[in-house]
């Protein structure tokens, strides 16, 4: 059990975890991408904030999982394909993070978030359109492929992941940034999947939520081995994250795609600003 040098009461951590989980679920960027900078801004040590962030990620992923499965939004093959690259990057990043100056890590995180925001906001409109003949089919992934179909406005829309090597390269970068900084990396994975691999935003966000649970598991295994997981504070952010994750998953399925994209882009800019401010 670690000593997190907590400067927030447990009920404040519950509320903060809930708010960050809603934001993270809606944008498909993971609650930790919001929670960790906020905890750092509140004065918590990075070594204490990182495990709480990953607990938020894991809880948010679990809370959203069943609903996203029911909606046929999660593409497991695609998720695990990019997670393979992301996990390698995350492990490598975590192992070298102790040798790099903190200010470099913070600025790397901020630059990556700005790139993600620009990529997300640059596109307008819905790329994948209903084709009509699939409307009687249930949404889901196609066996043996990185394609599938999802429901949009009462129609079934087919999609096929493109530029897979480029998407995996971006995911490797996302994983490395996640390993270096201690956040989930969803703020990079979702835009990479949507903009590089041409996967619909809702599928990209849901699939990213699935993969973030795996990234968090790997990180938490490492933090637990180092004795850095504070159980009280961890339970507080988990309770908050589960409540917020449930609400976020409902909002994610209702919001129009352009709104979802704009919200995600705006969040990324806010996160970049917080991190840059912290690294002055």
């Amino acid at each position, binding site marked *: 059990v670690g000593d997190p040098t907590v400067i927030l009461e447990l009920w404040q951590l519950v509320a903060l975890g809930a708010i960050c989980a809603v934001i993270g679920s809606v944008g498909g960027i993971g609650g930790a991408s919001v929670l960790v900078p906020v905890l750092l801004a509140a004065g918590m040590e990075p070594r204490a904030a990182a495990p709480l962030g990953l607990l938020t990620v894991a809880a948010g992923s679990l809370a959203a999982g069943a609903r996203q499965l029911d909606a046929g939004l999660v593409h497991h093959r695609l998720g695990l394909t990019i997670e393979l690259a992301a996990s390698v990057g995350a492990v490598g990043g975590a192992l070298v993070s102790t040798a790099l100056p903190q200010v470099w890590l913070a600025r790397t995180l901020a630059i990556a978030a700005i790139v993600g925001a620009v990529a997300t906001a640059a596109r307008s409109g819905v790329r994948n359109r209903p084709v009509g003949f699939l409307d009687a089919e249930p949404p889901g992934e196609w066996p043996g492929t990185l394609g599938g179909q999802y429901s949009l406005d009462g129609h079934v829309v087919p999609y096929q992941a493109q530029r897979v090597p480029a998407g995996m390269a971006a995911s490797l970068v996302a994983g490395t940034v996640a390993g270096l900084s201690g956040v989930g990396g969803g703020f990079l994975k979702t835009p990479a999947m949507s903009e590089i691999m041409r996967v619909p935003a809702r599928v990209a966000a849901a699939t990213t939520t699935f993969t973030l649970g795996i990234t968090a598991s790997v990180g938490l295994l490492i933090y637990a081995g180092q004795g850095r997981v504070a159980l009280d504070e961890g339970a507080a952010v*988990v309770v908050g994250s589960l409540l917020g994750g449930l609400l976020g998953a409902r909002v994610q399925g209702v919001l129009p795609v352009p709104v979802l994209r704009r919200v995600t882009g705006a969040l990324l800019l806010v996160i970049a600003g917080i991190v840059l401010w912290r690294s002055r």
Partner: protein
Amino acid sequence: VSAPGPDPKLDRFRRVGELLRVALLVTVALATATLVLRGAAERIAGTATVVVLIAVPLLRTAWLARRWSRRGDLRYASVATGVLAVATVGAIAGWLS
């Protein structure tokens, strides 16, 4: 886009969804117990919360690897197994560091 058709065993994901809901309820109960209880019970509940959160995604990945392997989808079964291998290597490296 050519569509080979939806997953013929899509219903199996419903069982996964049900298990995820159970895991969610268990996690809520354990985390709440951690905040309410004190002493050894608090530590046990807190540790169990973390264990469940770590185990669920990895078990889901292992289930997918087994399922795809049985159905002859060896490419993605290998991908899932690779993710588990990376997680194992990362965990070992973390515990040794």
